[in-house]
């Protein structure tokens, strides 16, 4: 388990898909060496467009290319591209343009670059657009399979990727099912629902809980929109207690999506573990401890919820 960043798996997969599908084009905003769209650029220079540091224009140009029949992947750090929300709202969402928005460097897990580069509000924004799908893989295998799916998906998608390497949480023969949560570890007492780079920590937290005779189920929610209402409903009715974990702000992300389903159901409890402030520079592990995304804190919050 050497681990690989989901951005790297994305870049490799996109470069492979480029050979199969001539309609795929890639736009980047001077970050292709970081978003890993560089792999595609070196193989297909005629279908790669560096738009410079002008993300609003990149969103619109991507929309125009999609409306002309191509499948554009527009890439930047998640906070920079989603920051052009109004362009995405009009030119992509409302226009029903088949644009794949790829945001890397999500969350505090990026570490030393600090808050300005950390996407922490992006899921909330993208989730608010009626036809926008939101996908966040939890390891490299899932990223690869998700990218394969997204290239086929008809409609706009926001794909949220990590800068940091992630250990595998899925088996090599993993099959990506859009919109379906994945039970990574069964458990009777409660459920931890996690997404993206912190799925691994959720599994570690479940191991810590097992030492305390708590049998926690761990579910990976790779598709935050459309959310897996059936799975959440089943858990809410059977176990009642759901802890959500994500490297995103506490408002509007996975925790909110799950809480909305549970509140409408009128049964069950939700507790959210997420980032509750503007973050800062630091080493990723230190940041995860400080902002509550470490396995210790996830386990502690799970116990609080269980005994509440």
């Amino acid at each position: 388990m050497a681990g690989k960043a989901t951005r790297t798996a994305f870049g490799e997969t996109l470069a492979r898909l480029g050979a199969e599908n001539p309609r795929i084009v890639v736009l980047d905003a001077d970050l292709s060496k970081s978003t890993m769209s560089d792999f595609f650029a070196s193989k297909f220079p005629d279908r790669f467009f560096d738009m410079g540091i002008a993300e609003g224009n990149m969103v619109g140009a991507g929309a125009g290319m999609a409306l002309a029949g191509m499948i554009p992947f527009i890439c930047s750090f998640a906070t920079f591209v989603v920051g052009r929300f109004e362009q995405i709202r009009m030119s992509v969402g409302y226009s029903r343009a088949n644009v794949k928005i790829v945001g890397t460097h999500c969350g505090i897990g990026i570490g030393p670059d600090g808050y300005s580069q950390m996407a922490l509000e992006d899921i909330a924004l993208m989730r608010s657009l009626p036809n926008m799908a939101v996908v966040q893989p939890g390891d490299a295998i899932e990223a690869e399979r998700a990218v394969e799916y997204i290239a086929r998906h008809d409609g706009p998608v926001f794909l949220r990727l990590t800068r940091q390497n992630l250990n595998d949480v899925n088996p090599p023969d993993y099959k990506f099912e859009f919109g379906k949560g994945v039970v990574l570890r069964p458990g009777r007492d409660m459920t931890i629902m996690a997404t993206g780079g912190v799925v691994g920590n959720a599994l570690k937290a479940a191991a810590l809980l097992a030492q305390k005779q708590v049998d926690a189920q761990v579910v990976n929610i790779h598709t935050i929109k459309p959310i897996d209402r059936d799975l959440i409903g089943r858990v809410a009715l059977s176990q009642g207690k759901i802890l959500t974990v994500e490297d995103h702000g506490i408002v509007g992300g996975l925790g909110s999506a799950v809480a909305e389903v549970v509140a409408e159901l009128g049964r069950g409890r939700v507790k959210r573990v997420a980032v509750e402030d503007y973050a800062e520079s630091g080493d990723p592990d230190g940041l995860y401890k400080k902002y509550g995304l470490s396995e210790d804190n996830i386990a502690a919050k799970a116990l609080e919820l269980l005994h509440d």
Partner: protein
Amino acid sequence: MEIEKLKTIAKEMRVDIIRMLTEAGSGHPGGSLSCIDIIVTLFFSKLRYRPNDPNWADRDRFVLSKGHCVPALYAVLAKLGTLPHDELLSLRKLNSRMQGHPDRNRTPGIEASTGSLGQGLSVALGMAMAGKTMKKDYRVYCMISDGESQAGQVWEAAMAAPKFKLDNLCVLLDYNKIQLSGAVRDIMNLEPLAEKWRAFNWNVTEIDGHDFGAILKALNDAEKVKDKPTLILCHTIKGKGVSFMEGKWEWHGKSPNREEGERAVQEILARN
């Protein structure tokens, strides 16, 4: 002969614009009237377009980035037969396809959903990039406004088009010099405007945007330019054709009442 035809159509379009806006009770007459001569010339003398097959893959594209002036485009699409003429009077009404601003998914013939100023040129840019990538020979036309040119995104797109050598892209700038709350030069001056586009490496021509011959010539000339996009800076008059609206910022975003509407129609019909 062709010019006379365009003149006659433009007059008819002005009447439709006034009738639509009067019936709607809100909307933007000033900018619709300033750009109509350009749109008429483009659609009736230049654009490769099949009125009954508006999604034809090889069509030329026209993106109306100054989306608030969509009554001008609806009138033209109705004249061509893409839209039924009697639908025009449902402008801005509930359940109508005639949205207050362009909506490509509701209305046949509308290429891009616009209305948030500054965005349409980027979409047109993408269409032109796709044309080059797919080796298709369609052209992309985009109309922007002067007030809109205050948006940074316009200049992001302006920087990108020459980089990709988009000689299939032609921007029509409706320079009526008035925006919602006053004169452009007072709100946020754009001058020197032609020089700005030249400095961004565009082929630039300046014309009278109400001179059909000049519009047609500029459109024809733009097609001959290689490896560069073209900007046609069209000097126009806000509210052109209706004397009490001409040059008045008050008529940027106010529809005429019944009496004003009737007076406007009579004047348009009486003019040469």
